[in-house]
């Protein structure tokens, strides 16, 4: 709406709307702008000359004065300010992460000293959902990974006439590395994400607050059973994955390179031992802790809206997979 630069000799604004019978919000917006603009220019505007319904709408919109301190300062978009905010957000994230880790360790200590307790039914339910119910997808992926390693072997090893070494490749690959890592990646996407979404939703629904005021430690109640279940189930899933991966690798070796099962098994027993299996299982247990930790952590750090639940799920998966890859890399360096 345009106001003329000069308003000579005008003291009052009046709108003749007597002939108006129908209107929509645009007229109200116009009248509001007129009233505001008039006030700025010290012109009086009396809405009571408007038709009654219109006048009521005008007065409803102006009845509560603007809360002057409610407006947020507009983002200036300054680079340094953005960097500052970003750094501070990392600081907050670090504090909440440390708090979460500390509280979780404390809950574990209470459990082992007998001061805390594990709710059996909750624990069994989590155990069921992250063990037997995850077996299908873990089995499928492990079979495929075993086959892929054998395929790779067939491409590379046949060039050197070293087909019978394919069992070394499959055995080493599955037992020491990929068995545990694939379980970790699948479970980060499947169970870690589910933990984060569930806990974040509980937070948005005030359920975590309700636990606290009922004198129930949310770490003991929610985090402990989830972490313990993953630490127990990861090695078991890894053993299943290893067995299936070795079998599927053996089948592909037979089909593509005519390596007989006897040759394959003989190669395996020479290539890998219980040490390799043990290493894979220890890693797997650690991966279990990391997946559970990142899922529960992101859930507890979430805000209170639906969008925050989505963010928590995403960051749980990203954190889980990154932490696993990093730990695996460090383990290989050692």
């Amino acid at each position, binding site marked *: 709406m345009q106001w003329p630069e000069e308003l000579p000799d005008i003291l009052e604004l009046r709108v003749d709307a007597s002939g108006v019978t129908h209107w929509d919000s645009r007229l109200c917006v116009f009248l509001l702008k007129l009233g505001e603009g008039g006030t700025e220019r010290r012109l009086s505007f009396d809405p009571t000359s408007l038709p009654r319904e219109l*006048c009521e709408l005008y007065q409803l919109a102006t009845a509560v004065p603007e*809360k002057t301190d409610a407006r947020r300062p507009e983002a200036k978009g300054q680079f340094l300010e953005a960097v500052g905010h970003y750094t501070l957000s990392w600081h907050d994230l670090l504090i909440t992460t440390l708090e979460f880790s500390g509280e979780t360790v404390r809950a574990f200590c209470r459990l082992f000293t007998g001061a805390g307790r594990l709710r059996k039914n909750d624990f069994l339910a989590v155990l069921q959902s992250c063990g037997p119910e995850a077996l299908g997808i873990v089995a499928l992926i492990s079979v495929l990974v075993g086959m892929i390693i054998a395929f790779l072997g067939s491409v590379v090893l046949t060039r050197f006439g070293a087909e019978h070494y394919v069992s070394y490749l499959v055995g080493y690959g599955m037992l020491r590395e990929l068995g545990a890592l694939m379980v970790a990646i699948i479970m980060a996407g499947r169970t870690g994400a589910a933990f984060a979404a569930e806990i974040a939703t509980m937070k948005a629904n005030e359920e975590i607050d309700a636990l606290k*005021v009922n004198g*129930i430690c949310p770490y003991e109640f929610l985090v402990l059973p989830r972490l313990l279940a993953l630490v127990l189930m990861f090695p078991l899933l890894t053993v299943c994955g290893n067995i299936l991966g070795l079998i599927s690798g053996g089948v592909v070796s037979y089909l593509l390179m005519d390596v007989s099962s006897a040759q394959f098994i003989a190669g395996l027993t020479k290539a890998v031992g219980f040490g390799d299996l043990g290493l894979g299982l220890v890693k797997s247990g650690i991966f279990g802790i990391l997946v559970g930790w990142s899922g529960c952590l992101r859930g507890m750090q979430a805000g209170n809206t639906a969008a925050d639940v989505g963010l928590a799920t995403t960051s749980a998966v990203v954190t889980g997979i990154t932490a696993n890859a990093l730990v695996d890399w460090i383990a290989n360096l050692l």
Partner: protein
Amino acid sequence: MNPAPANEPPPLRVEGVTLAYGDYVVMRDITFSVARSEIVVIMGGSGCGKSTLLKHLIGLRQPAVGTISYEGKDYFHIPDEERDKLLRRFGVLFQGGALFSSRTLSENVAMPMREHTDMSEAEIAETVAYKLALVGLRGFENYYPAEISGGMKKRAGLARALALDPDYLFFDEPSAGLDPVSSRRLDDLILHLRDSLRTSIIVVTHELSSIFAIADRAIYLDAISRRMLADAPPSELLARPPDPCIREFLTRAGSERLHGVNS
């Protein structure tokens, strides 16, 4: 009311409390106390910090300044075990009920008993049925929170809050979302709890009929000045309002202005 002996500290005392989110101050310098067997209503317009104050009272947030003490002990400076014991004497009804969504109503109500008492399963089942009957939800024991309406969730939340016969009850907007009959029944129940169990009850609400029906004292929080403007029985506030905005609040005076126009 039953006045406490002169030397005994009040069950709940809030002293010089400032509520803040980071640098943003919601309310300054709140002081009041609640006696045994007393209902105090915290009222005020939307967004004035009523629910925030309640979150502080139940220990979910620590005040920026000031102390909140129960029976003379500062809530935020007592040993963990003592705080756990105190929490067992709290019952809180959250705005949306805050039921555990993965559990049935009876499991929700039973949870505080399973956690904090050595009652047998049979005793728990009987008590749960009684608590659900108190809030008019008999027969809904095996429903999940997702299967019932918002008002029913709220009533189930109340049943859970009453599970351990608390000494302190906190209600966040108890009648919002309830039909008039349920709301009236809830008021009766609140009065009954005060008189029979000598519970100290703090209710956050802006439901006028409830305020006049149940409040022994009402505290008014003003969003504009960010201060507590009144602490008195509602009838007295109506007769001699210490501030015009309180009269407007208690008589819905704001709407007269509108209906007086052009007529």
